[in-house]
């Protein structure tokens, strides 16, 4: 039984459809990240799961129960907001117990649950403080605790780390992953940060304009993007795209363009390729490498800008009709303007249809 299931969801805000015919199935204990650029509908989707937004069409099921029209409190969900939304006039303890007090739980049980959650989140010392006296990381933990004490089936997290500085964000990201391991609860996490998505997700859904573009394991999405949008959205710098044509010649398939030529006979084509078919070849910067002039090569290019990143170097290359990024070792000596030969392994290539932008 899936923990969360969405069927044919449609949401219209004002006159503009924000989400159209969306399906999503999440298994119990999964950590699903909804990733996409601003305004792609990922937060809207999360708020509709929470019941804070009315849906116009479709169905939302949590743990097998249809909750499409249920009140937020009856859905078995907890939510962590970007701004944490802690009740400013209440102490941490009362923030944590607010939901339980409303449900009329006996005081003894409330104290036990709050105590357990506080211990788990290292908030025991801070229970009598007001939110204003907490640091950003502590506030974030209280916000998670508020969902934790209610023993919810599904945690919904709306960009919970984006208000923190980079160092704290990385720290809390690990804490969150640890927490997910300990709880084994289903989590749905919205972010526009691809690092958070890659590191946290058991599966990630990349969204664009209210539609899920691809829903798969992060490594799978990264290695085999379903279309050019997903390919370009993940990775930094993003995937190199080279427009060209396929050439079929006596059982061999070759990619041909002014900038780059590559034998793609072993590529797992979804449908049989046609001769002179217009395609776009995608290759990640870490899969391009520079080779000596006498070795076999796929492309030639001129060295442009060089960006040292510490752990590696990003090299920008000008090839005929294409600009390529290449990731290399940090200690390679390079001179701008030099001519270099490039090679790549066809295993790492992604091919897209030039018009539909879908993966072949």
């Amino acid at each position, binding site marked *: 039984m899936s923990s969360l299931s969405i069927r044919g969801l449609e949401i219209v805000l004002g006159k503009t459809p924000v989400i159209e015919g969306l399906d999503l199935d999440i298994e119990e204990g999964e950590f699903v990240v909804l990733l996409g650029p601003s305004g792609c509908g990922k937060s809207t989707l999360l708020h509709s799961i929470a019941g804070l937004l009315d849906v116009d069409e479709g169905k939302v099921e949590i743990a097998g129960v249809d909750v499409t029209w249920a009140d937020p409190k009856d859905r078995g969900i907890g939510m962590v*907001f970007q701004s944490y939304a802690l009740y*400013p006039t209440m102490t941490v303890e009362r923030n944590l117990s607010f939901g339980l007090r409303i449900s009329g739980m006996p005081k003894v049980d409330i104290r036990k649950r709050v105590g357990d959650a506080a211990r788990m989140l290292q908030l025991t010392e801070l229970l009598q403080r007001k939110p204003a006296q907490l640091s950003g990381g502590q506030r974030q933990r209280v916000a998670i605790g508020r969902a934790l004490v209610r023993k919810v089936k599904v945690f919904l997290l709306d960009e919970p780390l984006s208000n923190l500085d980079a160092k704290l964000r990385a720290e809390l990201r690990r804490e969150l992953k640890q927490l997910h391991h300990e709880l084994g609860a289903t989590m749905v996490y919205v972010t526009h940060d691809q690092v958070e998505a890659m590191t946290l997700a058991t599966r990630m859904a990349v969204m664009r304009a209210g539609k899920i573009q691809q829903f798969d394991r992060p490594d799978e999405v990264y290695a085999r993007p379903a279309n050019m949008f997903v390919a370009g959205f993940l990775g930094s710098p993003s995937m190199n795209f080279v427009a060209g044509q396929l050439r079929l010649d006596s059982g061999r398939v070759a990619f041909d363009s002014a900038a780059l030529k590559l034998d793609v006979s072993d590529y797992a084509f979804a449908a049989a390729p046609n001769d002179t078919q217009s395609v776009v070849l995608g290759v990640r910067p870490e899969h391009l490498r520079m080779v000596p002039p006498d070795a076999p090569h796929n492309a030639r290019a001129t060295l442009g800008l060089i960006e040292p990143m510490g752990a590696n170097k990003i090299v920008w290359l000008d090839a005929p009709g294409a600009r390529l990024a290449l990731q290399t070792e940090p200690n390679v000596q390079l001179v701008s303007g030099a001519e270099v030969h490039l090679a790549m392994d066809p295993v790492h290539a992604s091919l897209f249809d030039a018009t539909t932008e879908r993966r072949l």
Partner: protein
Amino acid sequence: MNNTLSPRPRQPLFTPARLGVYFFLVSAALFFLLPLYVMGVTSIKPMTEIRLGNIFAFPLEVTFAPWARAWSSACTGLECRGISVGFWNSTRILIPSLVLSILLGSINGYALAYWRVRWAGWFFAILMLGAFIPYPVMLYPLVRMFAAVNLFQSIPNIVLIHTFFGMPIMTLVFRNYYASLPVELFKAARIDGGGFWRIYFQLMVPMSLPILVVALILQTTGIWNDFILGLIFAGRENYPMTVQLNNIINSTQGEKIYNVNMAATLLTSMVPLAVYFISGRWFVRGIAAGAVKG
């Protein structure tokens, strides 16, 4: 190495620009303080001194008898029980009116800011329109309406009138305040299971202190200074202080008792003044600090 901070260069105390600023400030202060000064000194002079006509002169003989007389024995028409009667009437009108108008205004504002009320925009627009219609237009219909339900000229009558007339501004003030709070607080409380009233009383009211003070100042001065509504709707027994003050000043036999009149006027304006002085420091205070961001 010498790490001591070099002294901040001294600003000259008197430059022509500074002098201009001081001159303006002092003359503006005098302009507003002079009438108050005249009232103050007149109220503590005996009538013999007032008759001399030196209204700016400091009293040669200080007496508080006019204040005592204004408070407890000045005549309003035939009755001579002073303005204290009006003070207690005004208090009896003010307190229920304050509680009712602020409570209803804040509930209204909260509902409009957070709950998806059908036709909320139209409702709010009509309420605002009410604020722009001059009082006199509504007086006669209101008199007839209250007479029809046998409430005309009573404390409940004047309290309801103040509540009605306070509704547009109170709703506006509270709606705007609640709309400025992060909406995620409300959403979090909804997920925690809070309903309309629980979120209002346990979350919104505790966060409303700064705006409560603003509402308190607005309503106290408005209700205390009201004259026409009190005159029409309160009834002879419950005339507020402003109406009593007018009666004291206008019911003169023989000479005008300026010192008593001044004292009565100062007494009447005491409450709004006190409210300003006491609540001023609460006026701007971010109670929502710590709710959001880090």
